[in-house]
């Protein structure tokens, strides 16, 4: 009991709590906001263009297009109509977009563009309990009636629902003689749909055509694709007319179904609608806010991901600090490396990220070496502390200036990274190195500089990793875990690794 209420116990409990919290938050972000552990993961976004064209008759124009509706099958990224000079109105209830205009001349082009993502296969059932009337087909002659009966006889040898049987039969290869005779030579989607509907009507099964677009990359100016919906007692079931498979595949977007028309044009002739499809990939991370909107997630609005890009980038930079701090704590209190200034290595590592590794190291080495030479000269002047360090700061600025100018002049890129190093920190490194040099000799000074560089490089290697930076930004709740780890390390009383070496002489071998 006593152990639980100790500082370490409380911190331990908080650490465990924070791990649970962070894990849940991570799960939540992945599940509801579509965040990914992999920064490179992309979401496919389909752009469907419906191009409406017609020739005006000289009367007022009213164009109406049936549009896809929000469904489980996909999410809508954006919807857009390009119709210059038209008055656009959307009827959300009936999922139609209407464009009106005064009489016009010449060929008219109207574009409707919709962008979809997260497409999924769904069952494609539509509940409808209204009684469906089937208009009994009228046979041209007895021969046709007989042919239909034979076809059904063949179909009944197959398994499954009537619609499936008949679609499979009509797509069978080679076609049975009877079916071949029944179908026209030119088998367009439209004709096939009508024939299937005819055959189903014979058996008193209601069916209807569904118009939409099959999502296929680089589809250009294609007519609407068709699927068939069959009424199977209180619900409409959608069928693929080529395979007989029931269900709405993820690559099919429905524009229109049932009695309504796909396109109505008043005041125009020769109207037609052609579809083009384009696929693009957008980073999953950027799609997160869209997804969150679908989830009605208020949390998202208060998250850092809803901020403008500039603020996000600043925060992205800050989010990596805790990890750098953790490394510093580990290096000092667990490993036991003494560095110049507590957070100096981390700040150098941060600068290295901006300058690039090799360029940064060379440049930093140059600045410190030049600074040390100047500082040695300052020693002789016997200046007081604050004016002396101030002089070093100004010298560092001058060195940076010179390196940048020289670098530019001689097209030596490395030098221009000089400006990224924190001036005050650099000056203090020079000051400390110089004092250590004077008081404890060159060996100790070099050792400290090397220690600082090792920790800086190590920190750099970890925080420069794009993947780690992405993770720390996308799943920033883990910073809370780092906080408690750091606090727990504050109660660590074990030996530092360097002490294992330092105190090794105390162990007497027996």
């Amino acid at each position: 009991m006593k152990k639980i209420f100790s500082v370490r116990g409380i911190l331990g409990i908080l650490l465990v709590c924070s791990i649970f919290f962070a894990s849940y938050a991570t799960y939540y972000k992945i599940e509801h906001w579509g965040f990914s552990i992999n920064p490179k993961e992309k979401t496919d976004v389909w752009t469907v263009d419906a191009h409406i064209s017609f020739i005006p008759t000289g009367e007022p124009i009213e164009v109406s297009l049936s549009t896809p509706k929000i469904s489980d099958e996909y999410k809508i990224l954006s919807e857009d109509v390009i119709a210059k000079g038209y008055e656009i109105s959307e009827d959300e209830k009936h999922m139609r977009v209407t464009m009106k205009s005064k009489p016009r001349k010449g060929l008219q082009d109207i574009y409707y563009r919709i962008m979809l993502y997260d497409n999924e296969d769904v069952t494609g059932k539509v509940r409808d309990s209204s009684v469906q009337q089937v208009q009994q087909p009228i046979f041209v002659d007895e021969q046709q009636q007989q042919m239909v009966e034979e076809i059904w006889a063949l179909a009944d040898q197959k398994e499954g629902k009537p619609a499936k049987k008949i679609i499979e039969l009509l797509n069978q290869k080679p076609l049975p003689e009877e079916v071949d005779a029944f179908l026209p030579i030119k088998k367009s989607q439209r004709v096939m749909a009508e024939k299937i509907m005819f055959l189903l009507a014979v058996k008193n099964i209601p069916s209807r055509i569904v118009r939409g677009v099959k999502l296929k990359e680089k589809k250009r100016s294609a007519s609407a694709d068709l699927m068939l919906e069959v009424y199977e007692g209180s619900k409409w079931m959608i069928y693929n007319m080529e395979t007989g498979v029931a269900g709405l595949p993820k690559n099919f977007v429905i524009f229109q179904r049932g009695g309504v028309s796909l396109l109505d044009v008043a005041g125009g002739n020769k109207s037609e609608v052609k579809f083009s499809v384009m696929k693009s990939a957008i980073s999953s991370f950027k799609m997160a806010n869209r997804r969150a909107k679908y989830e009605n997630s208020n949390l998202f609005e208060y998250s850092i991901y809803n901020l403008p890009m500039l603020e996000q980038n600043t925060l992205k930079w800050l989010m990596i600090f805790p990890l750098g701090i953790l490394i510093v704590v580990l290096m000092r209190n667990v490993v036991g490396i003494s560095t110049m200034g507590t957070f100096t290595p981390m700040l150098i590592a941060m600068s290295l990220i901006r300058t690039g590794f090799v360029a940064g190291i060379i440049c930093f080495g140059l600045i410190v070496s030049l600074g040390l030479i100047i500082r040695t000269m300052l020693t002789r002047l016997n200046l007081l502390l604050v004016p002396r360090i101030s002089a070093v700061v100004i010298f560092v600025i001058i060195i940076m200036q010179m390196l940048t100018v020289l670098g530019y002049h001689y097209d030596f890129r490395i030098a221009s990274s000089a400006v990224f190093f924190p001036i005050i920190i650099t000056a203090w490194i020079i000051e400390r190195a110089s004092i250590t040099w004077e008081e404890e000799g060159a060996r100790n000074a070099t050792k400290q500089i090397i220690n600082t560089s090792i920790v800086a490089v190590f920190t750099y290697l970890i925080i420069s990793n794009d993947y780690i930076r992405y993770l720390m930004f996308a799943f920033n709740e883990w910073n809370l875990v780092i906080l408690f780890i750091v606090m727990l390390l504050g109660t660590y009383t074990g030996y530092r690794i360097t002490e294992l070496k330092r105190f090794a002489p105390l162990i007497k071998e027996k």
Partner: protein
Amino acid sequence: MFEYFKIFSVPRKLRAIGVLGMNARNHGIIARYNKRSLYPLVDDKVQTKKLANNIDINTPRMIGVIEHQYQVKDLMQVVGKHKEFVIKPAHGSQGKGVLVIKKYNNGEFITASGKKLSFNDVYQHISNLLSGLYSLGGQYDVALIEELVHFSDAFKNFSYQGIPDVRIIVYKGYPIMAMMRLATKESDGRANLHQGAVGVGLNMQTGKAVQAVSHNVPIDFHPDTGTDLMTLQVPFWREHLMIGAQAYEMTGLGYLGADIVLDKKRGPMMLELNARPGLAVQIANGRGLKEAIKTVDKYYPKNLTAQERVDFVLNYKK
């Protein structure tokens, strides 16, 4: 390759002999027994000296203090008729900024190492000192002028130049571990072990050398003078321990290090106190501080006077 790893020990073995690590010292001992508010008592040498004088602990006699720049020119008035003196920064550490004047005459000063300085040089030195050149963190400092210590000849051949001093670690008023620090050529007259000084562990009951180390390696002879270090015995041992024990009541610090030098005529004198003494004393003695601390907590009586505590330590038998 394998040899390299041999220089590392395993935590289990260190724990078994009760070695105190830096983290354990900071977290378990200093944070617990040394109140932050007590630090100024030991960080300011003027204060330490005053406190010590109140309870008759021997320290180098204070001649005067220079607190402000305008007082620097009056140095000679402060020094008065003293023939020799030491200028020290009150907030300095590790002997930084200490100027020892052996002789002076008509504005010419001779330092301990025989260097000649003009009044201007000395003036400049004090001026720098006041601006915080030698104090930690560069805060404004005070110059302490005190009498010169005349080192006892007891350690004549044990140290290469420099000042040999005894460091005693005091826990809850009990002196628990001690070492003598001897300067070497390499340490440049300084007594810091990491700079190459020799550390000699001392027996708590006798003040005799237990073992000696240089750069963590046990040695028997001083690297420069060649003296057998095992023959070293600190005279006036009881008085040394008394200074350490009294420092506890004087400061209230539960864990402290007392630096003591031996004067020819006046005997052991407290030079300074340290609220966070280093851990090198363990290496010099070849035993762990944690073990010693545990023993105090377990077997040593509480509520004894300083004198009783020293007697207890001197007569303690395991």
